[in-house]
């Protein structure tokens, strides 16, 4: 997590502070227990990558819930931070991916920022992908 706090007196540029976050027990969610159409949606979401690095958004821990009601799918998700400039692009990618499931006619993607995303929500597979990409996690 990052915050931009002004330096003493605020006479120089702000600096980036990294804070430790906490991860509630049931996160990250990867859809391992999903069945039927929900499993199909999770599978499709695995194909969606972060625009900055070749890691699945599922492995980044961004997907908080997938539910299918009849032919309508709702995906609850978060972003790594509230001001994410790729917001619209990612939301559209997720919507399109969810709608590839055979039984889904329409998908709604809802953003939520609780619980707050932290690096600790990245799965082991995600960590491997990040290292592969040249990032230390």
């Amino acid at each position: 997590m990052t915050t931009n706090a002004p330096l003493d007196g605020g006479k120089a540029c702000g600096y980036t502070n990294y804070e430790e976050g906490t991860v509630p027990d049931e996160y990250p969610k990867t859809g391992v227990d999903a069945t039927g159409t929900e499993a199909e949606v999770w599978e499709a979401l695995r194909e969606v990558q972060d625009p900055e690095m070749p890691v699945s958004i599922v492995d980044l821990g961004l997907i908080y819930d997938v539910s299918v009601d009849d032919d309508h799918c709702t995906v609850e998700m978060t972003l790594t931070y509230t001001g994410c400039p790729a917001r619209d692009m990612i939301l559209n990618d997720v919507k399109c991916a969810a709608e590839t499931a055979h039984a889904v006619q329409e998908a709604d993607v809802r953003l939520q920022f609780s619980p707050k995303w932290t690096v600790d929500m990245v799965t082991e597979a995600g960590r491997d992908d990040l290292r592969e990409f040249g990032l230390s996690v």
Partner: protein
Amino acid sequence: MTTDPSTTTTADDAAVQCPYCGSTDTKREHPKGPSLCRSMHFCTDCQQPFERFH
């Protein structure tokens, strides 16, 4: 010559593991990277720059 004061931030600058060779003989060169959640590091062992994901 004054350096960018943000390089002396008190944020965690511990040696982290190099993603290329696994060495921990690394140093943080700058707390800021190409995006808000990354910092710049250098591995003394394999002489490669890398980033840390926070």
